[in-house]
C-alpha cells in the first residue's frame, strides 16, 4: 500500500489562517467535532448563543446596513444624510473630524489642516443642530464614533433632540465611548485612563437611567485589528476591555442587568472568511459565559453579544484599487455568515482618499447583493456544523481566553495598558505581518504578487481649504453672539462637578445649551483631569 501513501508535496510547509493565526490542518473530520459539545453549540437564540443571538437570525430581520459618513461642514454632511434618509436609510453613522474627537475647536493651532477632513466639523450645539436639520431624531437611529469627548457630543445630541421636541428616552443610537482601546490603538484619547473611565461610566449610567434605548458603549476590537492584532487577539483584548467596563460600572453601584443589555460591540472582518466567522461565533459564546458565570447576570439580554462589523480598512490596497471590491465582498460575507447586527462595507478607493460617491454606492450594493441574491441570509448560521469551522471556533475561543486570563493576572485591562502589554503584543503582530508580506510569504494580490503597471485615474473626493475658513468664521461669529457670562458660569460649574463624584452628564447638557464649545469644555476637563501622554514603547 506504499504507493497509495506516496503523495505530492504541498504548496507550503505550514498553513495558517493568517500571519500569527491558527494552524490549519489538511482536512477536518468528525474527530475534530468531538471536542464540540452540544452545550457549546445549541440552536440559535439559545445560551451561549454561539450560532446567533436570535432564533430566526436574518430570516426575521436583516442586519442594519450602516455606512459611516461625514465630511466637510455640517451642511454637506446634512445634505448627504437627508439624501440617505429620503432613500429609506434610518440608521446613520456619524464620522466626526479629529478636532471634535480630541477636544479642540476648529480654530485651535492643532486643528490646522484637519477641519472637515476625515469627518464633519462640530464645535458647538449650533453645528449639531444644523447637522440634523430636517431629520426627525425620533425616527432614526444614530451611531456616533466618538470616545474621549463622547459625553459632550452626546449632550449635544440630547439637546438637539430636545429642540426638535424629542425627549431623551425616545432616542435610539450608539456612542462608541470606548476609551480603553484608544490608548491601545486608535489614539484619540485626551485625559489619563482613570478620569477617562469615570467619564465613560458617567455616560453609561446616565443612559441606563435616561436613554433606555441608547447603546451607551460600543466596545471595539476593530481598531486593534487595524493596528495589527490577530483575530484571537482582537477577541481576547476586546472582551478584556469589556470586563473592565463591567467591573467599573459595578463599582459605581450599578446592578449588572441594569446596564449590560445596552453594551454593544464593534469588530473587524478580514478576508479569511472562515476564520472571521469562527471569531464571531467564539465571541458570542465567550461573552455569554463571562456575563453569566463571572458577573452573575440574570437577564439574557446582558449575555447577548450584539455587534457592528466594519470590513477591515488595512486590507485595502492602493495598487489596483478595484480589487478591493472583491476583498470587501469576502469580508462582508464573513460578517453576515458570522451573524452581525449591523455592517459597514468600505469603499474600494479608501486606500487613496475619502470615498467618492460611486465607491460608496458600490460598497452599499455589495451588502444588498449579499442580502438579497446570495442566499446566505436565508438560514441561521449556515456554516454551523462544519468540522473545520467548529474546530476553529473552539481554537479561537481558547486563544482569546488565554489572553483574558493573562490580562486578569496583570490586574485587568487598565493595568495591562499601563504596562504597555497589549500595545506591544499588537505591535509585534503588526511587525510579523509586515515581514511576512515583505518576504512574499503572505501574498497580497497586486502588491507583492500579480502586480501590474497602472494608470492613476481613480477619481477621489476632495475637501477644499475653504471648509476650514468657513468653519472658523462660523465659530468666531458664535463666540461673538452668545451670552459669554452664562458660558463662563457653566464652565465653572463643570469644573466643580468634575472635581466631585457627581455625574457630569447633566452639567454638560447645560453647558452645550449655553453654546460652550467642545474645546472650551475639554479645556476645563483637561485642567481638572490632566492630559495623557503615550508612553514610549517603540
Amino acid at each position, binding site marked *: 500500500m506504499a504507493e497509495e501513501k506516496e503523495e505530492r508535496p504541498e504548496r507550503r510547509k505550514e498553513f495558517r489562517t493568517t500571519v500569527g493565526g491558527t494552524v490549519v490542518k489538511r482536512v477536518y473530520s468528525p474527530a475534530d467535532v468531538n471536542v464540540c459539545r452540544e452545550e457549546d453549540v445549541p440552536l440559535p437564540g439559545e445560551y451561549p448563543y454561539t450560532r446567533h443571538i436570535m432564533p430566526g437570525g436574518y430570516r426575521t430581520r436583516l442586519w442594519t446596513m450602516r455606512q459611516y459618513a461625514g465630511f466637510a461642514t455640517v451642511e454637506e454632511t446634512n445634505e448627504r444624510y437627508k439624501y440617505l434618509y429620503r432613500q429609506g436609510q434610518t440608521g446613520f453613522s456619524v464620522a466626526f473630524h479629529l478636532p471634535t474627537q480630541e477636544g479642540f475647536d476648529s480654530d485651535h493651532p492643532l486643528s*490646522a*489642516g484637519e477641519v472637515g477632513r476625515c469627518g464633519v466639523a462640530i464645535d458647538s450645539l449650533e453645528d449639531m443642530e444644523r447637522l440634523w436639520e430636517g431629520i426627525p431624531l425620533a425616527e432614526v437611529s444614530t451611531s456616533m464614533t466618538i470616545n474621549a469627548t463622547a459625553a459632550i457630543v452626546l449632550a449635544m445630541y440630547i439637546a438637539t433632540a430636545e429642540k426638535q421636541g424629542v425627549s431623551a428616552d425616545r432616542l435610539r443610537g450608539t456612542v462608541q465611548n470606548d476609551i480603553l482601546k484608544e490608548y491601545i490603538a486608535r*489614539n484619540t484619547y485626551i485625559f489619563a485612563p482613570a478620569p477617562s473611565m469615570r467619564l465613560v461610566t458617567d455616560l453609561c449610567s446616565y443612559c441606563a437611567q435616561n436613554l433606555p434605548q441608547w447603546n451607551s458603549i460600543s466596545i471595539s476590537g476593530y481598531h486593534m485589528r*487595524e493596528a495589527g492584532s490577530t483575530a484571537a487577539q482582537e477577541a481576547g483584548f476586546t472582551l478584556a476591555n469589556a470586563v473592565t467596563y463591567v467591573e467599573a460600572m459595578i463599582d459605581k453601584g450599578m446592578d449588572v442587568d441594569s446596564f449590560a443589555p445596552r453594551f454593544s460591540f464593534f469588530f473587524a472582518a478580514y478576508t479569511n472568511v472562515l476564520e472571521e466567522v469562527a471569531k464571531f461565533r467564539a465571541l458570542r459564546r465567550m461573552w455569554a459565559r463571562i456575563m453569566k458565570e463571572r458577573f452573575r447576570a440574570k437577564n439574557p439580554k446582558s449575555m447577548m453579544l450584539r455587534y457592528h462589523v466594519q470590513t477591515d480598512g488595512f486590507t485595502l490596497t492602493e495598487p489596483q484599487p478595484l480589487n478591493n471590491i472583491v476583498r470587501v465582498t469576502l469580508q462582508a460575507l464573513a460578517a453576515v455568515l458570522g451573524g452581525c447586527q449591523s455592517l459597514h462595507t468600505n469603499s474600494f478607493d*479608501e486606500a487613496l482618499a475619502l470615498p467618492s460617491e460611486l465607491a460608496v454606492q458600490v460598497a452599499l450594493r455589495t451588502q444588498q447583493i449579499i442580502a438579497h441574491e446570495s442566499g446566505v441570509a436565508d438560514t441561521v448560521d449556515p456554516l454551523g456544523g462544519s468540522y473545520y469551522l467548529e474546530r476553529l471556533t473552539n481554537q479561537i475561543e481558547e486563544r482569546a481566553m488565554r489572553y483574558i486570563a493573562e490580562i486578569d493576572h496583570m490586574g485587568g485591562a487598565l493595568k495591562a495598558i499601563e504596562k504597555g502589554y497589549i500595545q506591544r503584543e499588537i505591535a509585534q503582530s503588526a511587525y510579523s505581518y509586515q515581514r511576512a508580506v515583505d518576504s512574499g510569504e503572505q501574498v497580497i494580490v497586486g502588491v507583492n504578487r500579480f502586480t501590474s503597471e497602472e494608470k492613476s485615474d481613480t477619481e477621489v473626493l476632495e475637501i477644499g481649504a475653504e471648509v476650514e475658513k468657513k468653519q472658523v468664521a462660523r465659530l468666531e461669529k458664535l463666540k461673538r453672539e452668545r451670552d459669554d457670562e452664562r458660558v463662563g458660569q457653566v464652565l465653572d460649574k463643570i469644573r466643580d462637578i468634575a472635581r466631585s463624584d457627581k455625574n457630569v452628564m447633566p452639567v454638560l447638557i447645560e453647558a452645550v445649551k449655553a453654546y460652550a464649545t467642545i474645546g472650551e469644555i475639554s479645556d476645563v476637563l483637561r485642567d481638572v483631569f490632566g492630559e495623557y501622554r503615550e508612553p514610549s514603547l517603540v
Partner: protein
Amino acid sequence: MSERKIRVLIAKPGLDGHDRGVKVLSRGLRDAGMEVIYLGLRLTPEQIAEAAVQEDVDVVGLSCLSGAHMTLFPKTVNLSRAKGGKDILFIGGGIVPKKDVPKLREAGVAQVFGPGTPIKEIADFIRENLAEEKRDNKD
C-alpha cells in the same frame, strides 16, 4: 573608519492617531541598520522641526492618514529648513491622493510612500538619496 549610522526621525504631525505604519517602519528601519527616533503623535510642525534640528537627523519621516498632509508636511519642511536643517531628507506616508504627490515633492518631500510599501523600498530610497546628496555636496 566606522561610518555613522543614518539617523531617522519619525513623527506624526496633526491629530491623526493611526500609528501602525510608523511603528512598523521605525522597527523595520532599525532592523535595516539605521538609528530611529520615533517622536510620537499629535505633534505640531514646530515641535517636529525643532526635534529634527536638535537631533541632527539625516531623514525625517512624516505620516498622516487624516487628509491634513497638504498643510502639515510642507509646513514641517519649511520650519526645519528655517531652523537650519538644510540637508534633511523628508519622506512622507499615509493616505495621500496621487495628485498631491507632485505638489508635496515641490514642497520638499522627496517621496511619498503609500500603504503596503515594503520596508526595504523605503530603506533603499533613504540610502540612495543620502548617498546622492553626499556626492552632490562634494562637487
